[in-house]
């Protein structure tokens, strides 16, 4: 909680301190770049950090956490310039409350069963049902946790129940699940395909059957009252076609799901 409040305070501070930043034109040599503050889902960390280094006319500051926590911060009055979530629903809800501009869906992902690469006790979803196998998932409120429950709901009831019984931790964001996995605290976890790609070979992905795969889509929106609205919109454009799209591809994200 303290960490969250602190990061909220930092975000607010970062936002307030740059009142004059908008006036600096991007081409000016020596002019300091305006600072763009971005609240983003934990699963976007690697892609966005790489994209942030490519930005020409702004320097990006990121706050990565569970999408739901970031949305709650915005509801409580925290104003980053951009909000990127691991589902389209959270930005859409903030849009309905008049807190952000119309959201854009900019990327897709897959949900996979991740296992430690060096010591895999689990080779398939069926293995996770066995008693004694341990599992980390996202808590219900964070998108990765709600996708996980969507998958389990599609399974026969007994199978879903057996898997849930092996859950040892409900983590507040995807970074927590990855951490528990790489530390060997659990045998398997449900995370995004891009998280496995970003784990430097520490994790391996067990693909879920296509019929279980939820439609994972990422939504982004400019926050109403953003200090750098122009740069924020340029950031979104770059995600759809440009350096951002490239960074997303490199990190293992998929194009936004159609329809």
């Amino acid at each position, binding site marked *: 909680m303290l960490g969250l409040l602190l990061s909220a305070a930092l975000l607010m501070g970062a936002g307030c301190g740059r009142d004059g930043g908008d006036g600096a034109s991007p081409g000016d040599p020596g002019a300091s770049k305006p600072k763009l503050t971005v609240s983003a889902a934990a699963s976007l960390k690697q892609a966005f950090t790489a994209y942030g280094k490519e930005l020409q006319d702004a320097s990006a500051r990121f706050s990565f956490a569970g999408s739901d926590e970031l949305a*709650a911060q915005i509801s409580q009055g925290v104003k980053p310039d951009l909000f990127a979530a691991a589902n389209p629903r959270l930005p859409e809800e903030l849009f309905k409350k008049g807190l952000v501009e119309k959201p854009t869906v900019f990327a897709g992902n897959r949900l996979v069963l991740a296992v430690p690469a060096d010591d895999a006790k689990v080779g398939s979803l069926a293995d996770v049902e066995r008693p004694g196998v341990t599992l980390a998932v996202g808590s219900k409120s*964070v998108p990765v946790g709600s996708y996980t429950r969507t998958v389990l709901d599609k399974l026969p009831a007994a199978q879903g129940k057996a898997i849930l019984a092996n859950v040892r*931790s*409900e983590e*507040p964001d995807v970074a927590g699940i990855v951490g528990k996995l790489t530390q060997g605290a659990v045998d398997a976890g449900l995370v995004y395909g891009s998280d496995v790609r970003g784990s430097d070979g520490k994790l391996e992905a067990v693909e879920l059957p296509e019929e279980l795969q939820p439609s994972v889509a990422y939504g982004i929106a400019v926050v109403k009252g953003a200090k750098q609205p122009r740069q924020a919109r340029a950031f979104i454009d770059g995600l759809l076609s440009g350096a951002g799209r490239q960074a997303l591809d490199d990190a293992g994200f998929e194009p936004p799901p159609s329809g």
Partner: protein
Amino acid sequence: MRERGWFPVGLVAALTIVLCFLTLPIVAIFVDTGPLDLLSSLGEDGALEALRLSLTCSAIAVGLIVVVGTPAAYLLATRRFRGRAALVTLIELPLVLPPAVAGIGLLAALGPKGVLGGLVEDAGINLVLTTAGVILALTFVAAPFYLRQAQSAFEALDRTWLEASRTLGATEARTFLRVAIPTAGPGLISGLALAWGRALGEFGATLMFAGSFRGITQTVPLAIYERFSTDFTGALALSAVLVAVSAALLLSVKLLSGSAWLGGAAR
């Protein structure tokens, strides 16, 4: 005349700022939550479980800390030996560790891939993601608060009393139990209250080492964090409960020790 008036005003102003700054967030928690919200938040799924878990785990942690920490602090307070200062600093180090560092340190030490992880596993003990892991994390972060206070309480004892007890034929163990502990009591108890409060509020180390699972490892601070995103009022209400419980603990412990409430503050 002017100068005499100016300084005390400054002192009062500073204290006022300190008071407002430290109490405002706590007051704000209660402004938004009526007594009814408090009760209904406790009725919610998982809230009572979290409270029960928090109380049990912190009580066990504090028990362990007192049983092992009291003699350890007595040794540090009554003996002079080489490297004592370094030892005291090492023991106090967790006081200034960020909880996340404590969590990652515990994983690196006792996690499945940690330095002693193999030993722990071979002994058939499972700590990570278990209630025992919560107790371990709480003990780690709270112990220095008690040790530090207990050490200074023992150091403040009048040595002639201890010597008199020895001269009258009491063994050192008897002197420790019958003279040192009762006399240092108020100091020990306020150390206990501090450690208990710290244990109740622990968040980061618990989340990293023990994870978050209802009824097993989800203590009140973790339950508050989980509610924050979906149910801000619920999170506030649960926070208010935690503040009330912590305050009640602190107060009752201080009242129990009698003189500690008034006189113990000087220690």
